[in-house]
């Protein structure tokens, strides 16, 4: 039986279900907490820290922390918003994100967050890290330049026996997403499309398809990311 509980988010009294993660509970109350590595319905990982909120004076990731009765959550404070913006800027400078040349531009969640937070220029130095592009898989292109290591592909894309097609390879700062060559050979077009769409950036692309949505009709061309949740509050 779901147990209804009451919590406060930025001073607003909200209702949620016991055990529900903060992002989901906030979303049910039409409040958007930005996420990047989180995918609804898949076990959260708390990797990107974009969803950081302050609970009882401590920063926690809203995608992995369940709400509890009487919890007081801070999300839109200036320092937390700046922390989120700093994470976005770090991701932009750490990888090689050439938006004008990226097929995912306009539909990219990292870019959409940068738009939402009005990132005009990152405060950090561009690293221009040496990364590779893997194009040997029959259905997919893996561009490591754009990978933000959110692990969404590893967690969400499995073959029919439940085996992960994607996995982490190497260690420390060299860590990257590897694709199982044997399993990727058997991928269907639908699976390849699903993998490309689960990627928040343009690191996984489906072959033989590109720039399908015209400029002006892409997901984040006209409305900021999160407005689908926020607009419900206005209705």
């Amino acid at each position, binding site marked *: 039986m779901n147990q209804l509980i009451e919590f406060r988010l930025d001073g607003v009294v909200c209702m949620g279900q016991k055990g529900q993660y903060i992002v989901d509970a906030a979303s049910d109350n039409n409040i958007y907490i930005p996420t990047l590595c989180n995918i609804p319905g898949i076990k959260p990982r708390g990797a990107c820290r974009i969803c950081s909120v302050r609970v009882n004076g401590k920063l926690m990731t809203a995608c992995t922390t369940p709400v509890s009765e009487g919890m007081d959550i801070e999300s839109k404070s200036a320092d937390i918003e700046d922390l989120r913006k700093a994470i976005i800027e770090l991701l932009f400078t750490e990888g090689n994100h*050439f938006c004008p*040349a990226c097929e995912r531009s306009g539909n990219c969640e990292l870019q959409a967050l940068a738009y939402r937070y009005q990132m005009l220029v990152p405060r950090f130095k561009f690293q221009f890290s040496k990364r590779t592009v893997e194009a040997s898989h029959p259905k997919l292109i893996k561009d490591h330049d754009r990978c933000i290591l959110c692990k969404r592909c590893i967690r969400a894309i499995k073959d029919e026996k439940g085996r992960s097609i994607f996995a982490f390879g190497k260690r420390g700062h060299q860590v990257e997403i590897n694709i199982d060559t044997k399993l990727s050979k058997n991928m269907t077009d639908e699976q390849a499309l699903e993998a490309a769409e689960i990627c928040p950036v343009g690191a996984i692309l489906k072959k033989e398809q590109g720039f399908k949505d015209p400029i002006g009709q892409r997901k984040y061309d006209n409305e900021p990311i999160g407005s689908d949740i926020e607009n419900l509050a206005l209705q």
Partner: protein
Amino acid sequence: MNKAIIATTSLAGCFGCHMSFLDIDEKILDLIELVEFNKSPINDIKKFTKMCDIGLIEGGCCNDENVHILKDFRAHCKILVSFGECAIMGGLPALRNTIPLQECLDEAYLNGPSVVGNNEKGIIPNDEELPVLLNKVYPCHEVVRIDYHLPGCPPKAELIWEALYALVTGNPLKLPYEIIKFD
């Protein structure tokens, strides 16, 4: 009221940002009431003749000439604005940043499919008149202090207009969601 003085330049860019600037269309008539152009490819004035209020920089720094011009702009402009992705983060020219310079030159002049057989002496241009390439393409703000950044490839004409209008008149800058895009 004295008109604000504007200078513009294109460093390692494609002139697309300048084209977008001209895309303000008939507002250029309003602009010319507010500003006077000094050194700029738009009027072909090659050298600064006075101190300027605003300098618009397109393109990053890929060679020593770009650095020289950028420093000249910093010395002659009270406010410097990077406009366009290339000025802000190196842009497409910076795609070479992960490849050693020698490899780039070898590919361009010796080994590339379009040059094989056409450069029998294996010459890589090195005339002293040519600007020396830098090891990497640098964003402008990593070379001199830049006051404002207008992203886009190119930045939308409305964004350039709104930014210039705000800078010249002192009015607050309006930044609606639609006009800031990185592509």
